């Protein structure tokens, strides 16, 4: 499970935070490092490979003064509905966001499975289209 850890309150049992991270599959060194960085107020991305129950883990983290924010690509992305809400044809959508028309068609018609990064890109286009436009704009 991918998480970003951040300081929520005083960590009164720092060693138990390290133990919790290790129990969930993190190496001791990385857990120790994560503790130090979280204590400095840094948001620390971590990968915990052996989480049995996400809700329990998040509650345990909270009990130790740490907020765990889950990270994963959007599970369901409906490209056609994004495009329809922006009132764009496939051609216009491709041009506006610097994509190949064939790519847009393949994604929308489910001929190509959307990768994680593609889902994230479409998520950004849905919520903050101006950001993508700014990135692909060439004077």
């Amino acid at each position, binding site marked *: 499970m991918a998480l970003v850890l951040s*300081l929520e309150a*005083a960590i009164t049992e720092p*060693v138990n935070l390290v133990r919790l991270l290790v129990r969930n599959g993190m190496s*001791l060194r990385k857990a*120790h490092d994560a*503790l130090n960085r979280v*204590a400095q107020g840094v948001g620390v991305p971590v990968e915990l490979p052996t989480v049995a129950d996400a809700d329990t883990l998040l509650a345990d983290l909270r009990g130790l*003064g740490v907020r765990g924010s889950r990270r994963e690509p959007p599970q369901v992305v409906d490209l056609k509905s994004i495009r329809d809400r922006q009132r764009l044809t496939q051609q216009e959508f491709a041009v506006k966001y610097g994509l190949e028309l064939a790519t847009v068609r393949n994604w929308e018609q489910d001929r190509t499975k959307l990768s994680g990064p593609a889902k994230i890109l479409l998520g950004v286009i849905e919520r903050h289209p101006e950001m993508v436009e700014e990135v692909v704009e060439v004077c």
Partner: protein
Amino acid sequence: MAAEGLRNMSDENNVDIATLEAYRYKDWAISLTIEDDEFFGPPTFVFYLDVTKNGVPLGRLDVVANLEVRGRELWMLEAHVHGLHKGKLGREGLNAVARAIMEDAGAEAIVIEGGARTTGARPGHTPQRFRYPSGSGAVTGSGDH
């Protein structure tokens, strides 16, 4: 001594504190248990100390730190501690704890560099280095690091 303790520390990557042992100083008995360790890069340890005074258990002190041997000093880097409150230990108890760790390591001094504070008035701030016994500063090998 039931085990080699920290005595096999010929360099910073050869820290061995796999002990379960009681160290006694006056009224105090300290048992030190290594719970977890990792030796890639600077050795990282989780260990705890069970503290007894006059036969009465006072509680447990949990520690996570990177351990390095520098000359005859044991350095505990980015150390975090919780559990038994120092007010309950008092100066004498703290000394007993430090001596137990030193004895286990076969070290002549212990230097603690705390990790970023997780509680208190200045969380995120790195506390000042602490040395026990304080003062001498003469036992660190000059060419080790």
